[in-house]
């Protein structure tokens, strides 16, 4: 495997996995929270929150990346505060993870929201009458019953993060070993003469990872659904 992939290609694959893993893991709690809020609560500004969450899905990725650069760059309003604490995102792999997380967030929230909406509120009421406080109702009824959707949303978000290109390259550029993920690497290989072979190899890796993620999501989803659905 390592012979088949050159060191630069291997680096891009490892970096992509690292970026996508952390992007997905770190945004999951917030994704579940936002999905729950959108599914179950009514509050002023709900439609605005819904819009903001879905914006990266509709905007050109380059625009999202540029907005990230303006806000989270070292001179941006949020970025400068983070820089004072020693956290720099621009042109780092952590920045690539943030870009991937933002781009994947709408897909994650959508899947989780749908699965939370499918949980019968009557079961949550039953749980409350049995003495469960709202947080326990969520942890023991809502969350386990929404698990198939959460798993699906997570894997979908991971696949999206693996493929993120526009926002990443705009926000954190295309630095080998730091921000050159698989899509950026394919793009870079295609810019140099004789890079086509490496690009094709990365394309194959992309297809395998994406396919694997889909199959895994199907398999886990089916297993969890069988457990939740009884029988």
């Amino acid at each position: 495997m390592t012979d088949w992939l050159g060191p630069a290609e291997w680096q891009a694959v490892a970096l992509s996995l690292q970026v996508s893993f952390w992007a997905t893991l770190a945004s999951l709690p917030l994704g579940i929270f936002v999905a729950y809020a959108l599914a179950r609560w009514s509050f002023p500004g709900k439609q605005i929150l819904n819009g903001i969450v879905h914006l990266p899905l509709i905007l050109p990725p380059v625009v999202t990346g540029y907005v990230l650069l303006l806000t989270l760059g070292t001179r941006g309003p949020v970025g400068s505060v983070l820089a004072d604490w020693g956290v720099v995102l621009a042109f780092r792999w952590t920045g690539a993870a943030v870009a991937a997380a933002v781009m994947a967030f709408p897909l994650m929230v959508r899947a989780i929201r749908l699965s939370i909406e499918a949980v019968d509120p009557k079961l949550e009421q039953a749980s409350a009458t049995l003495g469960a406080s709202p947080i326990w109702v969520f942890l023991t009824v809502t969350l386990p019953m929404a698990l198939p959707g959460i798993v699906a949303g997570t894997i979908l978000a991971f696949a999206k993060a693996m493929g993120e290109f526009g926002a990443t390259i705009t926000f954190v550029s295309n630095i080998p070993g730091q921000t050159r993920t698989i899509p950026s690497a394919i793009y870079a290989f295609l810019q140099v003469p004789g890079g086509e072979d490496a690009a094709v190899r990365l394309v194959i890796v992309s297809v395998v990872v994406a396919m694997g993620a889909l199959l895994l999501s199907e398999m886990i989803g089916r297993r969890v659904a069988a457990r939740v659905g009884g029988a």
Partner: protein
Amino acid sequence: MLDVSLRHKFAGFTLDAHFTAPAGVTVLFGRSGSGKTTIVNAVAGLLMPQTGRIAAGDWVLLDTDRTIRLKPHKRRIGYVFQEARLFPHLTVRQNLAYGAWFAPKSAPRESMSRVVEMLGIGPLLDRRPGALSGGERQRVAIGRALLSAPRLILADEPLAALDEARKAEILPYFERLRDEVSVPILYVSHSASEVARLATTVVALDAGRVVAQGPAHAVLGDPSILPTGARDAGAVLTARVARHHDDGLTELDAGGLPLFLPRVRAAPEAQLRIRIAAHDVILSRTRPEGLSALNILPGTIQDIRAGDGPGTIVALDTAAGRVLARITQRSAAAMALEVGATVFAVVKTVSVASGDIGGGAKRQS
């Protein structure tokens, strides 16, 4: 002793109910839409009424004057819903343990093994709710509510979603609950026979208001109430099993009068409650002779209520207790029935439905 006082305005419906639920089973009885479920949901905390007070002694669940509105999970109420509402992702055992886990450790509670034995759900413990029948689900739901160490059990038409055979399967468990567990029960029903079998106290509701409350035999025997209509009228008698006869009949002793029913599965000396439907009672001015019906109860007419239709309800007091008869107004006139007159109530033995015979009438006053 639970005191409930509620006012809540919905669009087109106002609930204004005040009643007291003593120990035993208090049945909220009325047509659908009379406000029964609203009351139970307010007691559970699933609905916050605009004004009201729900309290038992110093245990205050709701007092809008003092801005006390306990959250549902702090009320310690076991709620048996109409559709069971078991958690599909947990096994029966985990469902049963669910409420117990949240109950205060010091709370007096039933033991899992006793509840499992009482409800006969031992063989189901490792299954999931999806693999249970409707009746089994409802038994598990009763157990789950009971094991949460509740101070009050609510049951909202727990039999309504079941067919007749399943109803007959579940009712005895509620009777055992009433007779063997000290937790008071607030039970919603629109079925006269459920009321007759279970109720210690009946609270009759109509259009959001309490129209009568009191012991079951008094409320059901009052022809002026009839919360679900004259068609459902029927009085409740308490009787003792005297002996079983070889011809398949059981002889009961109801206040000194013999009463013959198709074989009842109860030991001699056991106390039973029997609901005699008003439309199964025939009245006669003279003691009938040469009649196939075995049960003849002499009594004095206490009340005659003409309905909107051709029927009329006659209430008479017999040595066995209050009996209601639904006859036509034409017959009442032809027989010159009047309050104070002596008549004979005739009840066919086979007309008493087995669903209308209940055991364990210990707490009936």
